């Protein structure tokens, strides 16, 4: 569990680095996020007069929920202790709780930007969550389980073959991942131009250690999604619970590799596309929803044949 927390900022750093490179900038080092977080940790918190206790609790809740979710995704090994605590659906819902709290925090201080952020975030979530669930459905229908370890183990075996519905699910999952992590084209994590902000607008009033917790949570979320996609669609190299500790270093290396590839791809994708209007986002996510549904239906067609 500690592993994911440790890795998350590095991943963010990697993405930023790639983007900078693509833009012909040198960019900050991959470790920059760690420094940022430490800096924020040390700073004092400036709290709006109107903020309630909820506002101060939220960062830790968000972090906790995200962390638990992330810890439940098989990273480099399946059948780990407690990985049966919750399944894919529960993970989706955990992220949902994190978002719920964040949106509430956005509305707590009573500023217009917080409201904008919360409102848009909930709209995006309203489209993204079903899409994610549908993708999860079609995956778990193939694997006959919503238990990620089982899914990963099953995917690693040969008898999966190449299924069109899995491809559709992958696309859907990627789109959702982009939306959920507030990446371009849905949202721009680096912007501070008010009207384009979603995630940033919600956390606008946060500062100091609170902001740090939220940053970590965001990074964790990104890591979660990439490792999720990794363990479902490219499950190779994940050590099964049976194989002893000896297998771990190798699979760990595999895992790091996957993360790196994911991060690079994300960076490349982000620089090569423009951000879209907020009201085009639903269409974007609606496409994901449709893909998820289509994938599932195709699954049945291929089955009932």
């Amino acid at each position, binding site marked *: 569990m500690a592993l994911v927390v440790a890795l998350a900022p590095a991943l963010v750093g990697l993405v930023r680095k790639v983007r900078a490179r693509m833009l012909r900038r040198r960019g900050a080092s991959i470790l920059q996020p760690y420094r940022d977080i430490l800096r924020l*940790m*040390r*700073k*004092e918190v*400036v*709290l*709006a007069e109107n903020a*309630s*206790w*909820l506002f101060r609790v939220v960062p*830790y*809740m968000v*972090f*906790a*929920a995200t962390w*638990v979710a992330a810890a439940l995704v098989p990273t480099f090994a399946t059948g780990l202790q407690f990985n*049966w*605590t919750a*399944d894919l*659906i*529960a993970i989706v*819902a*955990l992220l*949902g*709780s994190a*978002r*719920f709290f964040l*949106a*509430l925090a*956005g*509305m*707590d*201080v*009573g500023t*217009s930007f917080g409201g904008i952020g919360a*409102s848009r975030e*909930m*709209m995006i*979530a*309203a*489209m*993204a*969550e079903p899409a994610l*669930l*549908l993708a999860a*459905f079609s995956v778990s*229908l193939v694997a006959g389980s*919503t*238990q990620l370890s*089982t899914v990963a183990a099953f995917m690693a075996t040969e008898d999966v073959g190449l299924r069109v519905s899995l491809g559709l699910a992958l696309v859907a999952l990627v789109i959702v991942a982009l939306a959920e992590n507030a990446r371009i084209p849905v949202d721009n994590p680096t912007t501070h131009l008010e009207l384009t902000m979603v995630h940033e607008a919600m956390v606008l009033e946060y500062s100091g*250690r609170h902001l*740090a*917790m939220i940053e970590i949570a965001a990074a964790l979320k990104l890591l979660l999604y990439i490792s999720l996609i990794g363990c479902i669609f490219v499950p190779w190299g994940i050590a099964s619970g049976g194989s002893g500790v000896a297998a771990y270093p190798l699979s760990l290396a595999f895992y790091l590799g996957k993360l790196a590839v994911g991060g690079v791809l994300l960076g490349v994708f982000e620089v090569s596309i423009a951000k879209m209007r907020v009201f085009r986002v*639903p269409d974007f996510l609606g496409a994901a929803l449709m893909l998820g*549904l289509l994938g*599932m*239906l195709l699954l*049945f067609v291929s*089955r*009932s044949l």
Partner: protein
Amino acid sequence: MSAVDLSLYCVAALLALGLAAIALRRSAAISALVYFGSALLSLVLAGAGVAVLAGAAEITGRVLPVGLPWLGSHWRIDALSAFFLLVVGFGGAAASVYAVGYGRHESEPQRVLPFYPAFLGAMALVVMANDAFSFLLSWEVMSLLSWALVMAHHRAAGTQHAGYVYLVMAGFGTMALLLAFGLLAGSAGDYAFEAMRAAARSPAMAAVILALMLVGAGSKAGLVPLHVWLPLAHPAAPSHVSALMSGVMTKVALYGLIRVVFDLVGPLEWWASPAVIVLGAGTAVLGILNALVASDIKKILAYSTIENIGVIVAALGLALAFRANGMAATSALAFSAALFHIVNHAAFKSLLFMGAGNVLVATGQRELDVLGGLIHRMPVTAFLVLVGALAISALPPLNGFASEWLLFQSVLKSPELPQAGLQIIVPAAGAMLALAAALAAAAFVRLYGVGFLGRPRSDVAAKAIEVDRFALAAMGALALVCVLAGIFPGVMLDLMAPAAEAMVNGRLPVQADEAWQTLVPIAETRSTYSGLLVFLFIVFSATSSAWLVHRLASRRLRRGPAWDCGFPSNIANTQYGAGSFVQPLRRVLGTILLGAREEVAMPPPGDNRPARLLVTLRDVIWDGGYLRLAALINSAATQMNRLQFLTIRRYLSLVVGSLVSLLLVLTIWN
């Protein structure tokens, strides 16, 4: 004394309480007496239910020499009845305790007190009835009393309309039930449930009965498109009654549906199930969409009730589909999901309505746009409502998620269904349910964020004060239930297993002996969820991280003005309001389903009035269906009314005309 007798005595006592309330309407202590009494008796009812469910008390019946003379009135508590008796008692107890405090603020208590306990009793009777007449009698009495309660504030604007629509819809539903039971009883007219169970009927007949039940019970439970009365009536009632109506009475209606569809009609063909599934899913989505755009707290809650009813009905439809294909275990899974969600919804919806009641007491307002910042003025209420909001938004580790998780598990079993039609419909319904869940989260972020967070939008909100202890205690108990049921779902499932077993003659594996209270509905490898562990992990990581941060990093804190990108405004209305919050979703989803229209009224150049954004919503079902029907009846009445103003000669010619025509008939008949 057997459970059924005990419960009957309780009901009698409740009715007596109602009469006492009439007799002692002058005395001051009567309110507290009535509510304490109802609370106590409800607890006994719940206890009786638990006893039967847990197998401590055996299933017995009782025939009283009243009701239909040659039949008597049959009462019986089997597993299903016991489960719903538990729901009634539990919800009733909570609402009563709440009302001990809330009732003090009632303007005309004599319009509430006589009906309230009787209403509880009637609901208990409905779930205990074991013959058609007793069932319908209790059912209709329940409607009638709830109507009387809705009309308690009869001088408030809109209450009369609400009460009228409610009672007419109730009458309509009862007529449908009458017809359904008429079919069940057959021309011999044997109204006892045993006889109905024993009788054999054709699949078509069974399907017709199912349809009639969906109309009859559905209209009471709030299935779209028969839901129109619900968002009118529930808000109009006093809040503890709203809690009962939303949290319990709709469940009693579902009991009627379950009792007939799963028990009395006997086996149903698979093709009967898709209608139920689609109806449920559609209800869920439409209900929550309306909740999203409503701006009256209690209306929002009422619409979200419709959503949850939709979820439950969809689950029941799944259970039907699986049962028709002999997949008993899976059917039990879906059915248990439905039952579990029934309990959960009873808990958190009552909790939320009580919260709305507190807000009403503290501010006298139900409109979101005049509230805000209540978390500072009413911290306890705010916290408890937050728990309820989390639970109803199906967020782990609370109970709402546990039941929805089970439902999704059963949806995922759909590929094993033989019929291609179901294979396609079930996942689509699952998608709609997922959408509904996500929208529910949005709706309650809106409700809580606008109502309780931010800055107060009016003086009343700024001057609100926390309510009395009884109310808070009742809400606290409900919140605790929400948490516990979320952490130990296995206990609940085991408790309600007998009911499921009786209806779909299959059951879930016993959950009690799983490690860490894990839910294993089907198989370890397939899907597991341990609310307890999730809860522990979250608590642990949150506290530990907070502790670490405060310990190792800074703990300094300074209050300052809000940043708000540099230009904070102290005008409260610059915050996001109820309308603005939902605007994106309204634009995305509302245009068709809600007929939402936006137009900007731009003043002409030189005119310095501000431009206004006008948002119009129209209820498509109400305008298109109900108003049209009303117009038809009206015009028909107007046409016929001419007959009131004829001359005597014309009336005579009517007589002569009918005479001659009959004679002609006779002539031809010979």
